């Protein structure tokens, strides 16, 4: 009698790339709806432009590389990349900004390195970093969240602004614009104002900026669902947010006038989106359990360092790329001991 034999892995979760990606997209829905609620139609247009350009670029380059186009597109990884990039960009930004970012993310950051599974850097963050380095003015033109805004643009007015840069009659960009909480904090601190003075502005809610903190909550909800579904490893967000809270607590306790309190760091900028959706990218993150703690904590520390002393208001994207670079080394030094072997890497039984 013959028994069926198979090589490892013997226990398979039954998951496939498209199932994982679909769950990530589902988990992004609450945060995306919150972004839409607070920032209007620009958010949806960003996501749509990013997705359209990214899918087209992926199809074109797959054809060029003579890979199956339909099957690879169906794994949805390119949609996740585009969606994440779209969420990170300022709403109502000119159309070529998301287009250029997602083109770079798919063509350079993903396919020049060999496509899904071979890319050392998170494509969405590589696209974001290209844009923030190349077009700093456009990338820091944020609009006010709806709880503060005096006017809101409808779907058609937003569309017109995205593609032509024309605003409705009698409306200036200044009426819509507002600096992000991180940006405000940074510029005001540079003007030697204390945190207490800065926080008297109506921009602030309980933790971070008004509106922004709620978006953070909805990302957190989606992220926790991902962790519960075991799509994302809990160690990475735990390490990220833990390290961010720990180091910002130390500096907050030492000097509360020039260092914002820890919750501000967690609920501002890209921290929660980054912790649950970006740092957990299985391709570019460290893969050993201990390595994931180190990887997550590294991103948290670097995010704080860049926010506090760097040249850019937010540091999540840079921190993620830097730790992506370190991930292979972290994996090398944190290899778990294989059962039956004395030390990691030891081939003798």
């Amino acid at each position: 009698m013959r028994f069926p034999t198979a090589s490892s892995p013997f226990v398979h979760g039954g998951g496939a790339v498209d199932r994982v990606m679909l769950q990530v997209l589902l988990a992004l829905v609450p945060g995306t709806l919150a972004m839409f609620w607070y920032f209007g139609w620009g958010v949806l247009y960003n996501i749509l432009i990013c997705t359209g350009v990214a899918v087209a670029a992926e199809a074109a380059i797959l054809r060029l590389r003579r890979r199956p186009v339909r099957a690879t597109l169906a794994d949805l990884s390119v949609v996740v990349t585009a969606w994440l990039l779209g969420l990170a960009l300022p709403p109502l930004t000119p159309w070529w900004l998301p287009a250029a970012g997602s083109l770079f993310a798919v063509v350079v950051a993903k396919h020049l390195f060999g496509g899904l599974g071979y890319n050392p850097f998170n494509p969405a963050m590589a696209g974001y970093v290209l844009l923030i380095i190349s077009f700093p003015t456009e990338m820091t033109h944020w609009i006010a969240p709806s709880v503060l805004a005096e006017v809101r643009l409808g779907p058609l007015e937003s569309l017109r602004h995205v593609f032509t840069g024309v605003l409705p009659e009698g409306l200036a960009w200044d009426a819509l614009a507002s600096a992000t909480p991180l940006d405000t904090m940074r510029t005001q601190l540079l003007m030697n104002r204390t945190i207490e003075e800065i926080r008297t502005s109506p921009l602030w809610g309980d933790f971070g900026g008004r509106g922004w903190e709620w978006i953070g909550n909805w990302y957190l909800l989606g992220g926790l669902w991902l962790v519960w579904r075991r799509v994302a490893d809990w160690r990475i967000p735990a390490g990220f947010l833990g390290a961010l809270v720990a180091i910002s607590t130390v500096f907050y306790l030492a000097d509360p006038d020039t260092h914002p309190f820890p919750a501000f760091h967690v609920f501002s900028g890209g921290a929660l989106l980054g912790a649950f959706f970006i740092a957990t990218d299985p391709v570019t993150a460290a893969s050993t359990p201990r390595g994931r703690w180190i990887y997550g904590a590294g991103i948290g520390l670097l995010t704080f360092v860049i926010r506090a002393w760097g040249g850019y208001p937010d540091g999540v994207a840079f921190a993620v790329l830097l730790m992506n670079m370190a991930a292979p080394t972290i994996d090398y030094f944190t290899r778990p001991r294989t059962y039956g072997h004395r030390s990691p890497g030891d081939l003798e039984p």
Partner: protein
Amino acid sequence: MNAEYRHLISEGLWNNNVGLVQLLGLCPLLAVTNTAVNGLGLGLATLFVLVASNVTVSAVRRWVTPEIRIPVFVLVIASAVTAIELLMAAWLYDLYRVLGIFVPLIVTNCAIIGRAESYASRNPVPQAAVDGLAMGAGFTALLVVLGALRELAGHGTLLREAQFLFGTGAAHWKITVWPGDHGLLLAILPPGAFFGLGLLIAIKNVIDARRAGRAAQPVAAQPATAPTA
């Protein structure tokens, strides 16, 4: 022109290009190619040094023993670089200021000592001179193409600041390909040089592969057509 020279020229310009194939001299190649004119300026300086050092090394090759060849090469190259540095400071001061440390750093360009060691020290003067000329021209061409590419992406112009190299009359040579200030800043920052060089190497490899494929085709096609014929 005999076959030896033709071979040297094709090696220097394409088949064994210093930057695209040997990947030598990358430090100046990546650092100064933010505009086409900067690339051309440093390329010409390197070309001059390469020819001068190749000729000198080849002329003295019978009296330089292998034990002391490296110090001799370095002295020869350093003298040529010092000469061109002084010449540039005298006549092309603006360009000299823009290129800055990268003019004296030509001394450390491995392409130059590489040609002295692998070619000039073993061949007669005329061949060594042509080798220096061809290698230098290949390097200059690469610097100009990479500089033009980055300038186009970063500033949307071509030949900006041409007056640094060609005198004040050249100030209006600047061609604005697309107006406005929405250039891709990354292209003129250091990462842009890496992306640009990688792209050019890839393009060269594609062209070579196409050519090899075309050259191989008649041979490969023969057995297939033979049975029917």
